[in-house]
């Protein structure tokens, strides 16, 4: 295990690369999921506000 993590002494480079890749992709996925939800709740609020005003 230790050996695997060490990557033959090049841990910084290998994990640096993979770390950044994982970070960016995960952040993108999270941001995308969150964005959809915030948009929907915002629109929902707008609809409710409008609904309250008309009667």
């Amino acid at each position, binding site marked *: 295990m230790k050996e695997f993590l060490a990557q*033959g002494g090049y841990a910084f480079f290998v994990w640096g*690369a993979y770390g950044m890749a994982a970070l960016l992709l995960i952040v993108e996925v999270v941001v995308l999921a969150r*964005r959809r939800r915030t948009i929907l709740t915002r629109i929902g609020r707008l609809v409710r506000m409008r609904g309250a005003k008309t009667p």
Partner: protein
Amino acid sequence: MKVNWFKFAAPANFYPVAGWLVSVFAVLAAAAILIGLYWGFFETPSVLGGTNPQKEYYRIIFIHVPAAWMSMWLYLVLAGWCAIGLVFNTRLSYMMAAAVAPTGAIFTFLALWTGALWGRPSWGTYWDWDPRLTSELILFFLYLGYIALHSAIDDTRRADKAAALLAIVGLICVPVIFWSINCPDPTQCAALHQRSSLSQMESNILSSMLIMAFGFWMYSFAAAFARLRGIILEREADTAWVQELATKEARR
């Protein structure tokens, strides 16, 4: 039976289709990336001998090369949607373009970042003004230009068209730029063209890299469609179907 493809060009109809596509591509991407990583880390020799003495850091190749490929491919996709949008004036294609751009920029950045981390152990420097690296940097600037212009204009219709025009101008310029950097001395261009040597690669490495590339490709699809769904919702906020959807989601 005749399928009316134009029906799907309406955002309202495409929204549920996109939702379905997202899950399909996400599953494919996850599978390919997991397989590729396993193969890449455990089934490839840790030291390459012969003409290409690389150590463990060659494992960066499994993200470096796929990311570089995706960065270029996605720019083509971006420009393609932009061109379709400008010619046929379809809203959905502009939305597609806007959905692809950030993912493309991310992959471009990844190619640069991983390349830099590879360059240090391999060439002894993080950065070099090598043609390939430089043109990737310029591609990054083109992506950023598209995104920056799009977000600087807040009338979405205008933003779509202006950014689309920029992407296409960029596309016309890309070959010129690429070639000018690759060939700073026009009298000796021929000598500079042989560089990549995919065929000499160890077959295990090659196949896991190709699997990773496939995974990244599927990931791009998934991310683009997911973003597209958000964009559709944002832009169609005052239509009945979005409002219905929003109230339904809120109740849940």
